């Protein structure tokens, strides 16, 4: 097991295992960061800080239950995300006050073929399209969409799920309708 191998090797000797651990879990930490910090750069900061703590703890034998390494990484992500959220808010306030935003560069998310997404999104049935726009652009929750469109929240959830699956099917290989 990766965590075992890192913990039992001399510090820094299990580079392959550390790299594999990063490949497996960094995307999950990044998603956790995106979900909770809602900022690409902050999510990337979270990945780096979590892995610094994780590798140091594994190398020094400070992880008690290496079998549950996923749980340890999640717990570390939660703790560090709280700190980062504070730092991020403070940095945002300072930026608003002092910084020249025109020189800031935001890291972009990995994206799909945008032309394909555009064709597929615009080919979906109108109800599906509107649900996806309300969900991912307007960032509305099911209960708010339900209120706007006079539907039950449960119905919105089911319809949204189907709409996203139709979009996925089209983007990843089907044909626009």
């Amino acid at each position, binding site marked *: 097991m990766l965590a075992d191998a890192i913990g039992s090797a001399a510090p820094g000797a299990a580079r392959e295992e550390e790299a594999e651990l990063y490949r497996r879990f960094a995307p999950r930490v990044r998603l956790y960061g995106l979900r909770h910090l809602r900022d690409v750069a902050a999510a990337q900061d979270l990945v780096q800080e979590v892995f610094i703590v994780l590798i140091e703890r594994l190398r020094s034998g400070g992880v008690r239950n290496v079998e549950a390494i996923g749980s340890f990484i999640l717990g570390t992500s939660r703790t560090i995300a709280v700190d980062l959220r504070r730092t991020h808010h403070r940095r945002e306030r300072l930026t608003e006050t002092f910084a020249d935003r025109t020189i800031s560069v935001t890291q972009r998310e990995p*994206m799909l073929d945008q032309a394909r997404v555009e064709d597929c999104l615009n080919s979906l*049935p109108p109800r599906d399209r509107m649900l996806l726009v309300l969900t*991912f652009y307007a960032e509305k929750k099911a209960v708010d969409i339900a209120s706007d469109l006079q539907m039950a929240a449960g119905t919105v959830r089911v319809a949204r799920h189907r709409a996203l699956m139709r979009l996925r099917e089209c983007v990843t290989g089907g044909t626009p309708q």
Partner: protein
Amino acid sequence: MTADQCARGGSLANLIDYWIGDLDQVSAERIEAHVFECRECADCLAEIATLGAAVKETVSGARIHSIVTDGILNKFARDGLRMRTFSAEPGTFIPCAVWPEDDLIVTRLKGDFTGYEQLTVVLKATEGPELSRDEDIPLAGAREIIMVASAAHLRKLPLMRLQIRVSGTRNGLEQTIGEYGLEHGGAMSR
């Protein structure tokens, strides 16, 4: 992951709800714990996140045509998208055009849509074939249908007279609710 579930029983619907923030805290934490143990669900969540970001990117880039709500229009305005709005009453012809600074063209179709189901919007050239047909459109109010279209797309259309027909089903019968004429003046310049 199969269509709806991973091998360990994690559900795709729950992952979507989690990503959107539609779960209570306890359920969300349960999903997080599962994602950190299940590679299949981690991959699936990444896919949901990527698709969601792609939808946002497409809409933010004004490359969408859709029925929308006033709330979405407000969000467009907050995001700095420039909109030109045309309001049409049933039975009228109105001039419309696209200007260089426009990102989106908004068409407000006025009418009384109360009690209709299965609303259908058909766009056609007055002397020509159907250009688009949207069936079972969602409706956020009973007195108006709000449509947006990408200005970049509309700039490519030639000068033409367009007709929009809105129909719906009431008491089991399909009826025309309103017909709206647009005199498309093409892409203007200053």
